[in-house]
Every structure is written in structure tokens, then in C-alpha cells.
């Protein structure tokens, strides 16, 4: 029996609390996401984008855990070691499933489980909205109905839900602890803002596309834009918190309540970073400050603005300071100068074009180097390069389908003719 007691004492030892910390009793509970036919559609249809969000889970979590558990570590721990791990490993080979954040940030999760679960509940809303907007089986009305259901389900947890009233930037940027994170960790802060840019920005191609192929192409373009932000940090990162109405204006106009929740969510991410990073907040006060900020982000009275003021503020902050718009930045494909599948003949010795044996050059304007009707939409290089199709015509002219001018051509395309013998 004495041995049993000794074993029991040994087993229980790790559970004895450090004397310095007051006992904390938290009872917040987890809840399953809304069951619906659109569950996991985004994961299914946009795998690469979806996995990035799994990687973002890791980035947010390791940030808080490091700030809390390594308060004396040099800035390089986050700015170089973790940043490189995130951008060269985790984002490049993102996790296959949404992560268990409690396993990445166990100590932060113990510090403020209530705040952690607010994020988790809002992230579930984020994910489920992608599902609805990605579901090709739903028409516009169906999507609106399902988004309304998701928001209603989100509201069933008032202990976790962010307010649907816009909050002033003062709550985020003008508190005593504010700005500590962005000053000390500009690269990591920029990375988080780039995450938030994509998290709200990705709604925009899903909303504005008119067909499934456009949606697929649009999401890829927005994801490519995110990667572009990583090429020269922190210069290439957003310089301000990306605001949903600026980055995703069509989404925000259609689902303003969701857009406001996400702006509040992303604000609170920055606030907690500041509280954890700011040495002026003693460790014994950090939990209390986090819970205070969390309560202000949930209530409908602290630091609120009208929706019009929120829209104006987002505009004045400047989309150019937030990474730019999430759609319509990719120029159109170049307009072809021959009919589809035309067969040019070439001199085998020089490679020079000698004529067409099938199809023809498009637009009579090519013949005399005159600009065709859509010349404004042509790559700039075209106008300064000799047109090898000039003067050639198909032996038997076929009806000429006029190609639709590409809406947004590249400002400058490399000229493959340069350096080649014409």
C-alpha cells in the first residue's frame, strides 16, 4: 500500500500547479461545424488553396506559442528561424488537414483558452464560407441562404462570436500595448497580414466569377498573388492590415456581416500579438488583457463604428497598402494573330515563314502593319516587332473569326523575336 501511495504521488506530481500562478477554472466548450452538403467542398475543389489555410493555422499558433513561452528570445527566432521554416517548409508543403492548434500552442492555449476558441470558431466560419461559395451546385440564392445559415449558427455561440458591428482601428492600434509586434517583428507581422489578405481575398474570385472555369482560374490567380508577396519581405508584404471591404469589395457588399466579423477577427489577432510581444504588459497581466480585448471584440458597444464609416476607413487606409485587390490584376491572355490551328509554312533552311497552308493571319490590318481594331489590347512588344505574318494570306481564304480582345493585356511581354533572325 505504501508503494501504491508513492506511485500515486509520483503520478500526480506534474499536476501540482506552480505556486506563483493563481488557479484558473475555464469551461469554454468546443462545438462541431455546421453539418451541410457543402462541407469540405472547398477542400475538394481547391486543394492547393485549402492546404495553405492549414499552413496558416500553424503560423498563427507557433507565433503565439513562441511569444508566450520564449519572451526573452532574440527577434531572429521569429524573424528568421520560424519565418524561414514557415515560408520554405510549411507553406511549400502545407498540411493535408486542418491542424490541431492546441498541439502547436499548448501553453498559449492554457493561457487563454477562451480567446483561442474564439479564433477557432471564427476560423470554422471562414472555412465553411469557402465551402458555400465554392459549391457549384448552389445558385446565387442558395449561396445567400447558406451564408445566412452559417452566420446564424455562428451566432449560437455568443461566448465565442465576434461582434458584427465594425470596430474602430483604435481598438487595435491605439491601446497602451499596441504596435509592439509590428515594430519588433516586421517580417512575421507582414506574413500574418499576407495570410489575412488571402483569407479574405480568396472570397472575391469565388464571388465575382461567372462560371466554374472562371472560379477555378480566379482562385489560382489570387493564390499566385499571395506567393508574390513572399518574394521580397517585408517590402512586398501589406503595409496595413488588409481590410475586407478593400481587398474583397464584392464579397463585402454581398455579405457585410461576415466581412465585419473577419475584420474584427483579424484585428484581434494583431491585438493578441501586441499583448504577448509587449514587455510593458507583465506576464501576470497578459491573460487579463487578452480576455478584456476579447470581450470588447465580442460586444456590440466598445469602439464601434457604422458600416459606412468602416467602408470609408477601409478606403482611406488604401488598397495599395494592403497588398492590392484580390482579383483583376492578372492581364488577359495575348490576342492571337492567326486563326485557330492555322498552319504556317516555313523555309526549312532559315525557319522563316513563307505563307499559310491552312488558316490565315487575323485582321487585315496585319498586312500593312497598321494597328487592328484591338491594337490597344496587344502586348506592347508586338507593335515594335516586325510582324512575320504581314503580307501572307492563306491560299483559300476562310471566314475570319475576330478574336475577342483580351480585357487586360500585359503591360509588357518579352519579345521572343528579339535576337532571332527575322
Amino acid at each position, binding site marked *: 500500500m505504501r508503494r501504491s501511495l508513492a506511485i500515486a504521488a509520483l503520478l500526480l506530481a506534474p499536476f501540482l500547479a506552480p505556486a506563483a500562478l493563481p488557479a484558473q477554472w475555464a469551461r469554454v466548450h468546443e462545438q462541431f461545424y455546421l453539418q451541410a452538403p457543402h462541407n469540405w467542398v472547398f477542400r475538394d475543389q481547391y486543394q492547393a488553396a485549402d492546404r495553405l489555410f492549414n499552413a496558416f493555422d500553424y503560423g498563427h499558433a507557433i507565433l503565439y506559442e513562441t511569444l508566450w513561452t520564449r519572451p526573452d528570445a532574440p527577434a531572429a527566432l521569429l524573424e528568421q528561424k520560424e519565418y524561414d521554416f514557415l515560408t520554405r517548409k510549411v507553406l511549400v508543403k502545407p*498540411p493535408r488537414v486542418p491542424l490541431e492548434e492546441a498541439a502547436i500552442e*499548448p501553453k498559449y492555449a492554457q493561457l487563454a483558452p477562451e480567446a483561442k476558441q474564439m479564433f477557432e470558431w471564427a476560423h470554422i466560419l471562414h472555412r465553411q464560407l469557402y465551402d458555400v461559395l465554392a459549391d457549384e451546385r448552389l445558385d446565387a440564392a442558395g449561396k445567400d441562404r447558406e451564408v445566412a445559415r452559417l452566420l446564424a449558427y455562428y451566432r449560437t455561440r455568443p461566448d465565442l462570436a465576434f461582434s458584427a458591428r465594425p470596430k474602430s482601428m483604435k481598438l487595435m492600434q491605439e491601446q497602451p500595448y499596441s504596435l509592439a509586434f509590428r515594430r519588433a517583428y516586421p517580417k512575421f507581422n507582414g506574413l500574418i497580414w499576407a495570410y489575412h489578405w488571402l483569407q479574405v481575398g480568396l472570397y472575391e474570385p469565388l464571388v465575382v466569377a461567372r462560371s466554374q472555369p472562371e472560379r477555378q482560374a480566379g482562385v489560382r490567380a489570387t493564390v499566385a498573388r499571395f506567393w508574390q508577396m513572399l518574394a521580397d519581405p517585408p517590402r512586398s508584404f501589406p503595409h496595413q492590415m488588409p481590410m475586407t471591404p478593400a481587398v474583397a469589395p464584392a464579397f463585402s457588399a454581398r455579405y457585410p456581416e461576415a466581412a465585419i466579423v473577419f475584420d474584427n477577427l483579424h484585428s484581434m489577432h494583431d491585438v493578441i500579438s501586441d499583448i504577448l510581444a509587449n514587455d510593458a504588459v507583465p506576464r501576470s497581466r497578459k491573460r487579463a488583457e487578452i480576455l478584456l480585448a476579447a470581450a470588447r471584440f465580442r460586444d456590440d458597444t466598445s469602439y464601434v463604428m457604422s458600416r459606412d464609416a468602416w467602408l470609408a476607413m477601409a478606403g482611406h487606409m488604401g488598397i495599395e497598402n494592403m497588398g492590392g485587390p484580390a482579383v483583376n490584376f492578372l492581364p488577359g491572355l495575348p490576342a492571337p494573330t492567326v486563326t485557330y490551328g492555322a498552319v504556317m509554312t516555313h523555309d526549312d533552311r532559315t525557319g522563316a515563314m513563307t505563307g499559310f497552308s491552312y488558316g490565315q493571319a487575323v485582321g487585315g490590318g496585319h498586312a500593312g502593319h497598321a494597328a487592328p481594331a484591338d491594337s490597344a489590347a496587344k502586348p506592347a512588344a508586338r507593335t515594335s516587332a516586325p510582324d512575320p505574318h504581314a503580307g501572307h494570306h492563306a491560299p483559300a481564304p476562310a471566314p475570319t473569326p475576330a478574336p475577342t480582345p483580351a480585357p487586360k493585356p500585359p503591360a509588357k511581354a518579352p519579345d521572343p523575336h528579339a535576337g532571332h533572325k527575322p
Partner: protein
Amino acid sequence: MSRRLAAGASAAALLALVRPAHAQTDFYNTDAGRPLTIEDAYPVERRALELQAAPLRLERALGGTYRWGIEPEMALGILPRTQVEVGLPLVYVDRGTSRTAGAAGVDVSVLHTLNVETLTVPALALSAGALLPAGPLGPDHAYGTLKAVATKTFSNARLHLNAQAAFGPGLSLASEGPVSGPVGGNTLELSRWLAGAAIDRTFPLRSLLVAVEAFARAPVVRGEEVEWNAGLGTRWQAAPRWTLDAGAGRHLTGDDRGWYVTAGAAFSVGLPWRAR
């Protein structure tokens, strides 16, 4: 089959295969038997319905007896931090010369977690369960269990403690004297008491957990000494809705140092909901 043999087989199947089934889809929430005997203090999420789709178990005990089990279970997060669960263990006992198959009772339980872990307080849970008579390999009477669970998380590992006691008329089985041999494996319900600890380590980017455990139990069968056991296991989140698990364990004391292996897959959905 003689009556005594039948009783032995029945008890063996029962002891080996029936456990309080706190199944959870999430790879991070370990569950009794999936993969270890020692579980953590967390229930399934509220409004989650979880189905244990293919929970297999193979056990070898004394005399080359192989026992195969399939244990369909479902768990429901009915209230905050609270789940109810129902399991129907199906058992096939292969004694070489004789084989027995059938249901081994109906298992019902409720687990309630008192609190969420904070820096100073571990997560604590209480569980109450019953094994009800049903099927050719089920018990003659209902048995009850009470259990306390604690989970404490460190930066690199978690520690779980379980303590459990059994009650009910079924304990009169002991009056029949020792069965043909000690029973192997993951035997919780019909221990007079059981106590143990598990340590697990998570690889969060892989959504993978590995765990080891050690526990002691006092079998109800009169004359048995306290039995020590060790096990190891893993859980993996294969997809958002699917968790796979695998485990193995062995007796460390007694004449027959039997072993077992388990493999399972759990699937989860949410309850239907509509805005009022």
C-alpha cells in the same frame, strides 16, 4: 462446450473486448481502446456524432487462443463538454478446436469534462458506464463502472491519468473461481480497480500522435494478483472526417504474457441544425 468452458470464453471475450467507448474523431483526443486503455479527459465536440467504422482487435491469450473483435460504436456530443456513447462489441473466439462468435453485451456510457485545461489546472473528467446483458457472449447481469480522468499538457507531451472502479452483481462471477486462465489485453470493466498513466507526443504538422502507457489492474477473478500492462499506440488524422488508429500491448506479469493489436477508423458528422 461445457458450461464452465462457456462461462470462461464468455468472460474472456467480455474482459478482452468491452471498454468504455469514448470515441473521438480528432486524432488529438485519445479514447479508451483507441489506441490505449488510458484515455484523455476530453469528449467529442458538442453536436458531433462519431461512428467507429472498423474497430478491429486481435488478441492472443494463453493456449494459443486468438480472439477477434469488431466493436461498432457511436458517440454523441449532446451537451457542452459531455458525450454519451453506445457500443455493440462483436467477438469471435478461436480456441483452435472450438470457435464461438456473437455479441458480447451492450456498452453505454456518459463522460463529462469538468473544465478546460489552463496553466494551473489540468483538465478533469468523470465517466459512468454500464455493460448490459445482450448476445451469446454478453454478461448475465449489468455491470457498472466509475472513472476519473485527468490530462495535463506540457510543451512537448501530454500526461493522462485514469482511475476506475467497477460495481454490480456481475462481480459474483468471481465466486465461480478462476477461469481457465488469465485474460489478456485491454481489460477494464471487470477489474475491481484500474489505475494508470499514458504519455503522448504530437506531431502537429502531420496530425499524428504517438503514445505509451502503463497501468495496473486488479482482476475480479478471485486469486488473481495485481496485473501490470504496457501498451503503445498511434492516431492519425487521415482526412478531416476520418481518424485512423493502431495499437499494441502486452501483459508484464502473470503466467501468460499475452498480447493484442488493434486497428480502427472513426468517421464523424455533425447533427442536423436549423435556425429557429
